[in-house]
């Protein structure tokens, strides 16, 4: 039994190491690390940053209109003399919060719809035609429509973007489920007497989670960008509460004279989107246990 002998030595140590295998692989993945650092730094800034600056993001001061970056205003100030750094830090709470909520909501509902459509084939045509209908609208147009109908506030942006992105997640999940449902291990589970609920929870869901999580990191990034776009178009979270999008929107008229108003929130948006994308790439490489990665 030579094939058995191979696993015998130091199984205890191996088992210990295996438990952290995914984490170790992630730690060795370069773009994941860069993404993680970017996202963590931005999230930390959004969470604890506002406590450190001590200034009010809505405090106006006509005396200090359009001050370029300096010691007093590291990121400069806008047309009302508000500190851009403080506004970007506070804006991160809203923008990242919206991105996270959209990813979470479209993930949960997309997974439910995708599994229903992929697993219970009788439902598939109805559910997916509905998703196709939603997908036929450009996501941003759909979000504008829903956002306009619900009124300009952060929560309606979340709902609007979630609805806009659900078809994508549903499609990804359905595609995974269609592959998984043909797998022999589902039949094996069935021979063991397992019912649909057991099979969905134990076999279908874990195996479609990888692509879903990857997709959600991208949706997180899209949502941040979309929030900026919607704010730019005037239907984002309403001023004076700052979000990255509406800081950019307000700075747009002065972009030549006061470039810093748009630059810093713009940088934040780009870095957040880049970070989430890198994170997603890393997760995709590592979450598939069969995929060998070279780092």
């Amino acid at each position, binding site marked *: 039994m030579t094939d058995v002998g191979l696993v015998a030595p130091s199984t205890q140590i191996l088992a210990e190491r295996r438990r952290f295998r995914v984490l170790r692989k992630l730690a060795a993945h370069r773009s994941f690390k860069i993404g993680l650092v970017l996202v963590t730094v931005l999230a930390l800034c959004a969470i604890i940053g506002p406590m450190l600056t001590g200034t009010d993001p809505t405090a106006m001061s006509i005396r200090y209109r359009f001050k370029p970056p300096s010691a007093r205003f590291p990121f400069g100030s806008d047309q009302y003399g508000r500190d851009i750094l403080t506004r970007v830090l506070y804006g991160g709470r809203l923008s990242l919060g919206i991105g996270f909520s959209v990813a979470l909501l479209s993930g949960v509902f997309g997974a439910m719809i995708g599994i229903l459509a992929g697993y219970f084939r009788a439902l598939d045509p109805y559910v997916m035609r509905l998703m196709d209908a939603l997908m036929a609208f450009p996501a941003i147009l759909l979000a504008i429509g829903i956002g306009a109908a619900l009124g300009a506030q952060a929560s309606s942006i979340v709902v609007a973007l979630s609805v806009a992105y659900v078809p994508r997640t549903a499609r990804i999940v359905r595609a995974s489920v269609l592959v998984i449902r043909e797998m*022999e291990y589902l039949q094996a589970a069935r*021979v063991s007497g397992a019912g649909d609920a057991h099979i969905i929870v134990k076999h279908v869901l874990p195996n479609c989670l990888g692509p879903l999580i990857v997709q959600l990191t991208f949706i997180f990034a899209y949502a941040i960008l979309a929030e900026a776009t919607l704010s730019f178009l005037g239907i984002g979270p309403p001023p004076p509460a700052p979000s990255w999008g509406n800081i950019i929107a307000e700075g747009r008229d002065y972009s030549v004279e006061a470039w810093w108003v748009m630059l810093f929130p713009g940088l934040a948006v780009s870095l957040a989107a880049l970070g989430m994308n890198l994170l997603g790439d890393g997760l995709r490489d590592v979450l598939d246990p069969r995929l060998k990665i070279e780092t």
Partner: protein
Amino acid sequence: MREAPIVIVRDLVKTFAARGASLRAVDGVSFDVGQGETLGLVGESGSGKSTTGRILVGLEAATSGSIRLFDQEISPASGKAALRAVRRRLQFVFQDPQNSLNPRMRAQDAIAEPLDVAGGLSRAARNDRVRELLEMVGLPRSCGDRFPHEFSGGQRQRIGIARALALKPEFIVCDEPVSSLDVSMQAQIVNLLLDLQERLGLSYLFIAHDLAVVRSISARVAVMYAGSIVEIAPRHELYTSPRHPYTQALLAAIPRVKPNKARAAVVTGELPSQIDTVPGCTFHPRCPFAFERCRAEKPKLREIAPSHLAACHLHDVPA
């Protein structure tokens, strides 16, 4: 005489809908499997042998015919409730453990899945049972927390077998359990199955296309062709004096080290279409001995020697 069979299959038919027509994948199959016995089921791809096995464990529904498992009638009419009653006593080993194990499930959870579904075991009892099963199939007790891809093909098949044994079944359908393994691993798995049979008194329906493997494990062998059993006989008799021309051709096709003996003609051509069925014997277009009657009348499986059945007009008692 043999003991009362624990599996009795009669006139099993399975048709699949195929582009408007219907395909008879299994066309009136009948056989018995006795307590502690291994029935080998051989045939080429598409002969319906896997479908037969899958119907037995409820992975496919039979179109007609009757199946009696442990004195429990399983028919299309009695449905799933009847199957559930015998489910625990009946298991299935899949061809390719690469596909039949969930890549995200640790070996211990894959093995314990039938236990978890059945319920009623404490955590500790479950884990003890898993370790016991690992040991039974010759794997280290401690390897339960590994994932399938961390095992070799042979080890994965051992996990598949351990899983099948979890609920202490009496009858296991093995669907080409060694076809995906290399030859040395095949021997190990076959020996493991024989060893387990002896220890646990298991009965097997052993499905394979490799006659040599079937020979090493089966007490009796049934040969399937185009959805029907054409010959069924005790192992020794089937291999030494095959009576059906198809069996003769199959045996002749086994490669030999010293190919000096005169051999029966190897069959040429392909399986007949199972959609547009030809009248008469399904084998007659390829049979070197076909005569008028073969083209008109389908031969029935009948006893031509003690416990030796064949479906061929050549062995009819002249009227």
